[in-house]
């Protein structure tokens, strides 16, 4: 199994000379694509934090009718095929459809434009953030929030000074996961936005037009980028655990 995972990646990487890698990176089309991937991923993560973290808090703290459905819905994008997700998004945010018309009024266009990349990345990757943040919030004893309130903190102040800092590590890990998952999104992005090309779309484009040899350097660059993100994620996750009260394990 290990070989199965390792061999294709190693073979591909070794078949590309560093020189070729370097010249490929200098191509404007290539570095633009990589930059677009990274920045769109960041935007997707930003909106994920903005809307996903409050949702995660509500899911961790409150009971309401239909909560199980919402929980299931959050996990759904992980299991559906990405091209299906792209088509689904297109049928809401396409120019002729209600979502597209609504945002069109604000001057935001999704098809063939950067906002489309952002929502395509967000759709498939936001579950990672919401789930991680929810777990983080659930690990904070609600009675700790009550103590803060008895000491004079409003619910909002309690959230900012107690709950959020204690769940910070989970949220951060979730955000990194979401970002890296967003960058690697191909199917949904491909359906919504072919141009401008993000890195995975570019790799596919090179493969289609010029064949394997031309697609490989792009794929290797993509791989290196993902490994860098993955390593950052690991170091963050393996850092010193937040000091927890012994009360957590009575």
């Amino acid at each position, binding site marked *: 199994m290990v070989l199965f995972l390792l061999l294709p990646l190693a073979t591909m990487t070794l078949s590309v000379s560093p020189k070729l890698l370097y010249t490929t990176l200098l191509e404007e089309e290539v570095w633009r694509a990589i930059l677009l991937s990274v920045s769109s991923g960041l935007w997707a993560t930003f909106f994920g934090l903005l809307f996903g973290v409050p949702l995660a808090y509500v899911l961790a703290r409150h009971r309401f009718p239909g909560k199980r459905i919402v929980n299931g819905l959050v996990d759904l994008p992980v299991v559906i095929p990405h091209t299906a997700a792209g088509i689904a998004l297109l049928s809401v945010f396409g120019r002729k459809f209600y979502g597209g018309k609504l945002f069109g009024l604000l001057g935001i266009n999704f098809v063939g434009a950067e906002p489309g990349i952002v929502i395509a990345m967000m759709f498939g990757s936001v579950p990672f953030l919401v789930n991680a943040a929810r777990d983080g919030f659930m690990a904070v004893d609600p009675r700790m929030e*009550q103590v803060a309130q*008895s000491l004079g903190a*409003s619910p909002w102040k309690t959230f900012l000074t107690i709950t959020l800092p204690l769940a910070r590590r989970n949220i951060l890990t979730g955000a990194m996961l979401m970002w890296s998952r967003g960058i690697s999104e191909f199917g949904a992005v491909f359906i919504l936005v072919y141009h401008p090309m993000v890195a995975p779309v570019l790799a596919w484009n090179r493969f289609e037009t010029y064949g394997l040899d031309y697609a490989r350097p792009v794929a290797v660059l993509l791989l290196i980028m993902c490994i860098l993100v993955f390593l950052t994620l690991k170091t963050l996750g393996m850092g010193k655990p937040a000091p927890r009260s012994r*009360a957590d394990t009575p």
Partner: protein
Amino acid sequence: MIRLDQLSLKIGSFQLEPLDFQFRPGEYFVLLGPTGTGKTSILELIAGIKRPTSGRIWRDATDITDWPSERRNIGFVYQDYLLFPHLTVRENILYGMKLRKVPEAIQRERLQRLAGLLRIEHLLDGHPGRLSGGEQQRTALARALAIEPEILLLDEPLSALDPQTKSHLQQELRQIHQELKTTTLHVTHNFEEALNLADRVGILHHGRLLQVGDPVEVFQQPNCRQVAEFIGMENLFEGTVTHASTSNLEEDCNAVFTTSGAEFVVLTDRHGKAHACIRPEEIILSTDAFDSSAANSFRGTIREVSDKRIISRVVVETPVPLVVYVTRTSRQRMQLKAGQDVNVIFKASAVHVF
């Protein structure tokens, strides 16, 4: 002062009966009751964490029933401390004062005073995760006291601690209360805490406050069967412990407990004011005087004999009244009856001093 006015709560099958109660300024009130009887719910109602089903909560002439928790100025300490793990001990204690925008000079002064009182000065810059249970609970107390609360609510504050830390912290709680005079409501199921700390004690059972009064009085004269069954403390005495001035190691723990009218030989390392309790089944009754290894022996007259299923409860008038349990068979064989003279004998180790 806080007053509860027909306060009641119903959650599922649990019901807290309408409760009328008024705290006395500066008192240490211990609410005693078995687990799952609604003690914590009362604290949560006062703190504003739970809303009552009906009834009002008053602070002097102000109705605070609908006030959110953060406006009430009530200190809350849980059994498991719940310190903020991402803040240092100092930041934990300052948390409430900072929110209240207490002037910095006063913040510093209060922090110093509380840290001194609770002996945690050397821990201020550390994080709570590294502290022992006792240290964590001291920090939690300092954090709650720092806001100079209207009332301090303690939810089983000593239950999670080892016996030695528990007894130290218990004495400290008393000293802190004498020093700061903060009105305190302490809930527990432990009689010892009630007897050692309480100015007044209340017995809560199945969501009803059954008896309120001076602790020794409540323990000696339960006003109903449920209270008697719950606390069931016969032969309870208040008095002082004195140690003979021998330096002999073996006799180190040998002491005399003096209560009004009688002296018992006891085994304890405590000094000064204390309570003593002798379990009625550990006292031996005999009609003839006999020599025994037991350190305590008295002669007295039986005042009453009553049967409780297979055992008989015999009250013997020695210098102090002593309750003795014997089996019904023994009572019949010895033909025990009121007015009869008997000997009562018990070992020094049968006297529980606390």
